[in-house]
């Protein structure tokens, strides 16, 4: 009945396809009762344009640092047992997994809240960029439309 020791925050940028099953196994633990996960997949459209594939790139040194900070914040804010988040970089095809977040906790409320917190913060703060390749041959860096 001793609570397990808290694992270190585990954030990673991966150039290889993400492995949700293997990541989930790392969260299994006799203590936890609830697992909330989030997966982001490459969609076949964005704002009305047909997307053929996506390329994610990152600023690795700062992305890893900021990702670890986000996970550490989640442990501070919510009563959770373990959390893992990974973000893919490189070229992804439609249906590929861009991001995976999993959180285990004794109770489902904390698992959901922490999972959602982590994905929202990753999307808002971690230096990762998305370039979309459209069916008509055009490309676009998402969110970079401002002009000086």
């Amino acid at each position, binding site marked *: 009945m001793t609570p397990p020791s808290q694992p270190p925050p585990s954030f990673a940028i991966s150039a290889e396809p993400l492995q949700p099953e293997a990541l989930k196994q790392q969260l299994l633990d006799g203590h936890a009762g609830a697992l909330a996960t989030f997966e*982001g997949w490459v969609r076949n459209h964005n704002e009305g344009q047909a997307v053929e594939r996506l390329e*994610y*790139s*990152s*600023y690795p*040194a*700062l992305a890893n*640092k*900021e990702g670890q900070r986000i996970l550490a914040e989640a442990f501070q804010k919510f009563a959770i047992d373990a959390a893992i988040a990974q*973000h893919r970089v490189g070229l992804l095809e439609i249906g590929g997994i*861009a*991001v995976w977040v999993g959180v285990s906790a004794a109770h489902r409320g904390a698992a959901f809240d922490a999972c959602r917190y982590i*994905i929202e913060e*990753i*999307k*808002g*703060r*971690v*230096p*990762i*960029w*998305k*370039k979309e390749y459209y069916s008509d041959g055009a490309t676009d*860096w*998402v*969110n*970079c439309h*401002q*002009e*000086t």
Partner: protein
Amino acid sequence: MPKKLTIQYFALLREQRGLDQETVQSDAATAASLYADLAQEHGFTLPTTALKVALNDDFADWQSPLSDGDTVVFIPPVAGG
């Protein structure tokens, strides 16, 4: 005295600059003025209001003074997930 600064480029800025990294000699006192100089020289389209800046691999204020040997990164709007 000009400072020697390493600048790394990512995403749209990498495309607009045409390289990943460069070392420059600059008299710019702050990251903000460094970006203004580079944007004019290379035609960067993103305004500083849309960017964040990192010094030596951590987020920094645009008005932080630059020191010789610093690594500077201008961070376009992120779009992970």
